[in-house]
């Protein structure tokens, strides 16, 4: 299978604003330390670990919204460490879909307009946009709510709109950061089923961070992080990959 993401010995350190000891080793905090993960196309992969383990940092690095301190990341064969900001934006726009913990929908846009947004910034024609938005909303079961603004949608519906927005431009990769964290069990289960269904039906690669056991139960492959390091990388059938 084709490799879609390759994280190679990536570290991410953040500078500390206040360094009480003034010692150089205390001037930064290490969020990720020499982590390596390889993801093939069509995988449904969970990044798990306790709070502060580096899940979001790893997703941000894969999603090209942050840059590693060392190591390199390849997305769809492109070495992201060599990209300029404009090219990173193009890569995100064309190849990556994002689902956020707090949905992050544009509040003044309707559900349909929110889903349309990634196509808009890609310069897709209006006819094509209409078709693909309808298709994406249909795939998440929200066609009837297309003209509602986010404040009139339930949490579960908002997250489904976010999923539709993440897949509408047919990205190579969908990144979801704690997508079920703000949902009740019913909506969380629906969302998990939805993501799983999209993974199977469209062959979309999903990488998501979670410590939600409900979501992990449905996940074939789980990468566990602790203190910024990959401590295990296994599938639910017990096969370790790393």
């Amino acid at each position: 299978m084709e490799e879609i993401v390759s994280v190679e010995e990536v570290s991410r350190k953040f500078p500390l604003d206040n360094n009480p000891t003034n010692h150089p080793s205390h001037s930064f905090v290490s969020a990720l330390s020499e982590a390596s993960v390889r993801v093939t196309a069509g995988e449904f992969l969970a990044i798990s670990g306790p709070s502060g383990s580096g899940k979001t940092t790893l997703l941000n690095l894969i999603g090209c919204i942050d840059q590693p301190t060392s190591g390199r990341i390849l997305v769809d064969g492109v070495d992201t460490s060599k990209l300029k900001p404009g090219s990173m934006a193009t890569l995100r726009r064309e190849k990556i879909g994002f689902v956020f913990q707090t949905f992050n929908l544009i509040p003044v846009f309707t559900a349909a307009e929110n889903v349309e947004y990634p196509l808009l910034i890609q310069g897709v024609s209006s006819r094509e946009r209409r078709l693909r938005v309808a298709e994406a909303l249909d795939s998440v079961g929200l066609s009837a709510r297309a003209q509602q603004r986010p404040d009139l949608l339930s949490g579960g519906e908002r997250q489904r709109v976010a999923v539709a927005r993440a897949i509408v431009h047919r990205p190579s990769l969908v990144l979801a950061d704690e997508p079920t964290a703000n949902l009740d069990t019913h909506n969380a289960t629906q969302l998990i089923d939805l993501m799983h269904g999209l993974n199977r039906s469209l062959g979309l690669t999903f990488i998501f961070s979670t410590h939600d056991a409900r979501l992990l139960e449905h996940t074939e492959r789980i990468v566990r992080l602790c203190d910024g390091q990959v401590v295990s990388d296994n599938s639910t059938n017990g096969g370790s990959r790393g």
Partner: protein
Amino acid sequence: MAKLSQITQRMEAAVAKFLLLAFRNVFRNRRRTLMTLFMVGGGVAGLLLVGGFFSSMFWGLREHTINSGLGHLQIFTADHFNRDEVRVLDTGIDNWRQVAASVQTGGHVRGVAPRIEFYGMVSNGDKSSVFMGTAVDPAAEASLGFFPARFESGRELDRKPTGEVEALIGVGLAKSMNVKVGDGLTVLAMTSDGALNGVDVQIVGIVDNGVAEMDARYLRITLASAQRLLQSDRITNLVVGLDKTENTDQVAAELTPRLSGLPQQLVLKKWIDLATYYKQVRSLFSTIFVFLGAIVFFMVLMSSVNTLLMTMFERTREIGTMLAMGTPRTWIIALFMFEATLIGVFGAIVGVLSGNLLGVLVNRSGLHLPPPPGFTTPMSFHVLHVPSLMIGSSLLVIVSLALASIFPAVRASRLRIAEALSHV
């Protein structure tokens, strides 16, 4: 070519959607937008009221200056402006009746009035004073609507003079000479030959021109009396009255070639060339208006920067999301600038509407201001509705808001995405 047109169409659609987003964002925090609109609209309304009042003042002063005797155009000999101010008719117009008749046939010309501007002494036997005299043809002046500003007492010069030499004098001169209507004065001036000549006049009216310095020197007699006093048939100038002040340039352009064919070399001056006081007032008040405009510009600019920065901070996560999805940073700048420009446009609309409404109310209220320095009559507080002012003030606030948005917009576009997404 077809591909280029396709790309253009797509861009247009994206821009339209972004404009829609900007439009909706403007009304997201209605209370704040309303406050900004009040501020921007207040600035525009203020400029319209002040500018409208100044325009009304300029218009009033212009028409007053023209109708109180300056006229729209004046004809002099070419040597007039190098003349000896004692023997004023040495450089006067000889064949003025022929010139007047020629000018009278021009389009938009309402009438032509001959004048002699002269200087000399006036005496009551006990006391003498300097005067600045104007000799007029009362009938011609009346036909043009040129009257002294206000009669303190008495009447205008007789249009068909009898043997008596009639005179109007200013209130200041009357006071200093201690005379009233019906009293006599002796007017002394230098003739063309260089001899001192005198004529006894009877005061038929005392006038208040509204300018104290002018009223202290003002003397007006008939043209025939002045020609007898100065021993000459000449006049110093011809005053041309038009149907509308706006036609001045056109008529001047038409008359100039007509005057060039005459034996005596004549020059045509527009009212604006002769209205020194008007120009000084206009220049002073225009400077004040520009200063007020600058204050409004900076007020709108600074307070808008603050408001827009607040908006940016509130929407940090949303901007982070847009950037994460690959929105070009220039689009974020454009979005913020669109929003600010829209607020400017709405603010300008509010300002133009409220400014005009207030102008109507002020005009209906009949308010008067105290006399300005050097004047003796109160000034009506009247506001003109000037389209160029509306456009200018609107553009000023729109540009001001667009400029105010640059800093917040650039800051928004430079947000670190990961930090923006975790912004609370």
